[in-house]
């Protein structure tokens, strides 16, 4: 049994993956991730890809909310900015995805910088409303700036190509998406232990105290907004190559709220929590759907009762989780890990 974890240097204390066991599991996970696309079917691959993109955007929001304590109801709009930028660069200027996806991230980052400015003066609910304005304005622009965005019909995007091979099925998309996701998750884990990451947390915990110890509040908050919307933009760029079409209807306010739910259910400020939250929000409705499908075999009229009920069950599940574990799924995960680490000495 593991009884302790002796560290001799600050570097080892700060490492992202701290124990040999964790490093071992990460290698196992990486191997599993490489094998997965060759055993899974289209449907599972599609869901995993979708969750990858959603988790990336949710991670951005977690940097803003969980790390820095700011709030945004415009996250879907930033994702839209990234999507449209990538789509326009790909279709009109023929840029390859190597350039257009990062450009989408940069464009969203710039948009986030502007939207983040009011955060210096206002906070909490007021900031939520200010970012809500961004959501509405961008959505309006996507719909009505027809010469650029293609209006309500949106833009159809040709598949990304690597060395001439089109990324046009779920298996190929898997490698592109999961590679980008993995790199950005590592970046976020490193960001947290950097000077900026600590500044984010200081601002979250008590902004006046942070200012006293020398954190520039304005720069820190703006940077949090920029990082957050950059992640959304990259996710948007990936998304547009994944779905191959972008329309204004893809980025409604309800998507912003869904991201908020992922972050809260998963665990504020927790990087694995972001993944748990995304998986929960995506898979639970799918599993419930599967459940209704099975029930239909025994009780054919079940659909008229069970389909609407599914949303109710989903809502109740979220509430139950929040009541019994306010720190989100990440905390449940931690408890589970402790249980195994301490077994059989603790129940």
């Amino acid at each position, binding site marked *: 049994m593991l009884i302790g974890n002796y560290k001799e240097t600050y570097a080892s204390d700060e490492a992202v993956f701290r124990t040999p066991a964790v490093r071992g599991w990460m290698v196992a996970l990486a191997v599993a991730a490489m094998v997965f696309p060759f055993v899974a079917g289209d*449907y*599972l691959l599609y869901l995993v890809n979708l969750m990858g993109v959603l988790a990336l955007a949710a991670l951005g929001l977690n940097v803003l909310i969980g790390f820095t304590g700011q709030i945004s109801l415009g996250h879907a709009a930033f994702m839209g900015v990234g999507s449209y930028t990538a789509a326009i660069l790909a279709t009109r200027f023929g840029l390859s995805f190597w350039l257009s996806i990062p450009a989408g991230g940069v464009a969203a980052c710039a948009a986030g910088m502007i939207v983040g400015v009011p955060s210096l003066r206002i906070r909490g609910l007021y900031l939520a409303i200010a970012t809500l304005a961004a959501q509405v304005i961008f959505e309006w622009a996507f719909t009505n700036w027809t010469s650029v965005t293609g209006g309500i*019909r949106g833009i159809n995007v040709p598949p990304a190509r690597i060395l001439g091979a089109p990324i046009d099925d779920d298996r190929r998309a898997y490698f592109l998406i999961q590679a980008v996701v993995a790199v950005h998750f590592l970046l976020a884990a490193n960001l947290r232990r950097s000077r900026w990451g600590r500044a984010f947390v200081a601002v979250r915990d008590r902004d006046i105290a942070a200012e006293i110890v020398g954190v520039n509040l304005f720069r820190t908050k703006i940077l949090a907004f920029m990082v957050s919307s950059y992640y959304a933009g990259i996710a948007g760029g990936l998304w547009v190559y994944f*779905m191959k079409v972008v329309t204004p*209807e893809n980025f409604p306010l309800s998507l912003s709220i869904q991201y908020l739910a992922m972050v809260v259910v998963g665990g504020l400020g927790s990087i694995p929590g972001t993944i748990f939250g995304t998986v929960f929000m995506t898979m639970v409705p799918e599993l419930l759907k599967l459940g209704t499908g099975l029930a239909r075999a025994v009780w054919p009229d079940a659909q008229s009762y069970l389909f609407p009920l599914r949303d109710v069950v989903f809502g109740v599940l979220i509430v139950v989780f929040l009541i019994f574990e306010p720190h989100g799924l990440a905390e449940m995960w931690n408890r589970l890990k402790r249980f195994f680490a301490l077994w059989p000495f603790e129940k």
Partner: protein
Amino acid sequence: MSHLKRGATFLLALSVALPAARAADDVITIGACQPITGRFAFAGVALNAALVDFVAYANEKGLVKGKKLAYVFEDSGYDTDRAVACFKRLMAQHSPVIMYGESTGLGKAIAPELTSRYKVLYGSTSFSSELADPKTHPYSFVSGPTYSDQFGILLEYIARNKGAAKPRVAFFYSDTEFGKDPIPFARKRAAELGLDVVAEVVTKVGAVDVTSEVLQLKKTQPDYVIFQGYVLAPIPEVVRAARDFGLKTKFMGTFWSMDKSIIDKLGQDADGYMGVNPYAYYYEEGAPGIAAMRAWNQKAHPEEKYRPSSYIQGWFTGMVYVEAINRVLAAKKPVTGENLAAALDAIKDWDTGGVTGKVTFVDHKAGVGRVYRANAQKGVFEPASDWIYVK
């Protein structure tokens, strides 16, 4: 930890169950991702009921010689991400040769893979002109006229029934894809037919306060106003307010705003409300196709006294599937998406028993519809024209 173990077992069972066995040779499977919940549920429930019923009806009557139809459906909640997941799951699990989709969004998102990999015949709830383009969507079709065609039918009707003066027309639409889809075509077509477009009013869906919009109508005094992109609100509000202002304008709608529910909502004010419907109504007499549908419902669902227009749309889509399958079988070819799509193109002057007019598929759509006028006294729509054909 037992619940954890149970969860893991369930997931394992799930992953094994997913790539299930393929259907037998004498069964033709139709898959559907239906918007049974979500914003489009008002139509999705009826569309799904129609396809369930039509497949049962077709099997009982033996409409497809020597084969049975199977219908598998899933709720996709009118959400493109989920609908694509649903599409892929049904394809993986049942490998249908025909699919039915919940929205224009799904049609657009699945198009590249539909063309390159899945290659199945694809019908949907959508009347968007974008999906009726064999070049970009070789496997998709629209079960009826597109919104542009529906505007073409209404404008044609107006041009045929004009008096001495040049008719003044206004378009009243929502700022959504659904609302804006036919407008560029409608402008062009109105100019060709010599109609004056005097106003274009754009609103949000479900806008409540319509006073300023109605004032705009009062100022421009159109003879006809055509709504597009709404189901109910704000049509009743606009019609009522226009009556209050003493406007003599005739109001018209396209498919989704032509169900009986709009008459129920407007009451006596519904008198004179008109519009285009590609299909006959459930209560119409003199159409054997509709009578057969009613007879089936009386037997299978005696409690259902009325079926909305979306039900007729679903039923008609089922008829198109069967017609395409029978043409493929008659040519002694295998029932594949490619052959079905080719068979669809060849459908010409097909008699649907009055469910709609004579059907000819051009560019994967059937440009036929009829103008109906509301009779508030009886609470029904009555034909105001014969079937009008457009290209």
